[in-house]
């Protein structure tokens, strides 16, 4: 089948993820939305891999998963730290630095 529907789906997921980053306040949920964006990119990679008939795209998706795993660890560690300090996981509360 044509690859276009898959790509459109991936663009939609990416867009929804981006909007989610902007509208959610819970840092963990914001981060989940970023993960959704990465997943959308993965779908595009896999789809293009099929389109071009080489495995590079699938390799890319694999790397993204590894990278995402590492990123999640670091990210959640930072979020936990700030949660323990402030007793709040809201990104809006972290706004001492401004102007």
């Amino acid at each position, binding site marked *: 089948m044509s690859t276009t529907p898959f790509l459109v789906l991936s663009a939609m997921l990416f867009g929804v993820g981006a909007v989610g980053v902007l509208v959610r306040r819970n840092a963990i949920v914001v981060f989940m939305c970023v993960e959704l964006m990465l997943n959308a990119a993965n779908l595009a990679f896999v789809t*293009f891999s099929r389109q071009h008939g080489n495995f590079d795209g699938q390799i890319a998706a694999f790397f*993204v998963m590894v990278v995402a795993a590492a990123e999640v660890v670091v990210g959640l560690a930072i979020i936990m730290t700030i949660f323990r*300090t402030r007793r709040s996981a809201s990104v809006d509360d972290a706004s001492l630095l401004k102007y």
Partner: protein
Amino acid sequence: MMSQSTVLATVLAAASFDKPTIAYGRLSPLLVVFGIALVGVVVEAFAPRERRYVIQTALALLGLGVSLLAVIGVGLDLKTNNDGASRGSVEAMGAIAVDGPSLFIWGTLLVFSLICVLLFAERHLEGGITAFAGQAAALPGTEAEREASSRGIEHTEVFPLMMFAIGGMMLFASANDLLTMFVALEVLSLPLYLLCGLARRRRLISQESALKYFLLGAFSSAFFLYGIALVYGFAGSFRLGEIDTAVSSTVGGSSLLLAGMALMAVGLLFKVSAAPFHAWTPDVYQGAPTAVTAFMAACTKVAAFGALLRVFYVALGGVRWDWQPMMWVIAALTMAIGSVIAITQTDIKRMLAYSSIAHAGFLITGFVGAQQGIEVAGQQISSLQAVMFYLVAYGFTTIGAFAVVTVVRDAGGETTHLSRWAGLGREAPVVAGVFAFFLLAFAGIPLTSGFTSKWAVFTSAWAGGAWPLVVVAVLMSVVAAFFYVRVIVVMFFSEPVGDGPTVAVPSILTSITITVGAAMTLILGVVPQPVFDLARTAGEFIR
């Protein structure tokens, strides 16, 4: 009926796996840095706590020094390629370009890192401990934190983290395929996110800066990744060279390519802190420990520009007409935002952050000229060389400036509010004088590196036809001069508020950093020739 072994043999033959060949010698600078980082982790695990600081500092300095020597060794070994403009080769099965610009950037990164390690290792200013949190896991203001402080506990993990970041930066600037570049981007970013949150003082804003940097960084790398996906969709490969081939065989460029290019630009411009992707910079620079800020301001910029130039010149050089207008606008916007907002800043670190944004704009101005070595035919400096020179000049100055920030203190640690700097010229004329010198260099006064470097990027941009942008840039540097002078006026001509700032006497480490920064700022202003020569010898990117 075939036996099992025959099936296996057939399958193996079909797979036809070639053992990868890796030129370890050529990659030795990278390998040394990563290797030292790993050794550092082992040291954290096994060495007794009180020895770790010394071991880690020594390891870091040693590793960076050896790596620098390796860069020089590899550099001497490079041969000019057939095209006559580039030198070097593609290594690690095509993943890494070990060419002139790569080595130049590696060398720059390593030198900057060397003097930043000294800042990281400074213990004199906090009374015998480093400026990093004793126990990052202990809550700010609790008994546990105080206990960690009073026992002189410090996170020596910062050294391996820094080494990982340096390795990532080196890889980022020399990656020859987009996938390696993405991995490198993360390798350099993750340690930085962590380092930002590890300040000993003002931990709330330090943690906040880590959170902001992390969330926005992850957001931007998602864009970068999606851009890579689209470009891959267009070209069917991640190799920069193969993308270039695909680009030149397509007339006018495909919309997939252009969209991918725009999204990749988002990720790269985020790292160089260009507007409108700059918003993280002031907050993170202000909140992070000052040593880390110095490191980020100099090294991240170098690495990110290395990658930006490589992607846009090598892979996307063929659609230059499509990305130049977009970069024009970005450059102008970045310069304007950086210079204009800096005027009303009241915090030194924040002001330097905006100045760093403005400088990113100047650098992009040079980048937009896109004058390549082949085109200028030895006539003038190419854009690449001009930008590389600027990065060297700016890096030294900015590290020096942040190093000065670390020594101006009051009871609560570093005192970064501008009003607290009033009268510094009387309190500590040497420190204030050196800082004023750095500011003049930022402003681009002749006989400082700021002048020669600005001159280099502006002329190359002008020669590339971007003269309106140069006019904007020169105007913006006037605006910028205004706030640099404002700080000088405050330091020398204002009455101190209260009991005034004090300048803590740093150990030899920070002193070396400040001295090197000031000396190089002067030397690159007076005799810039050797570095220009080096940049010219580096030549162009390998394709």
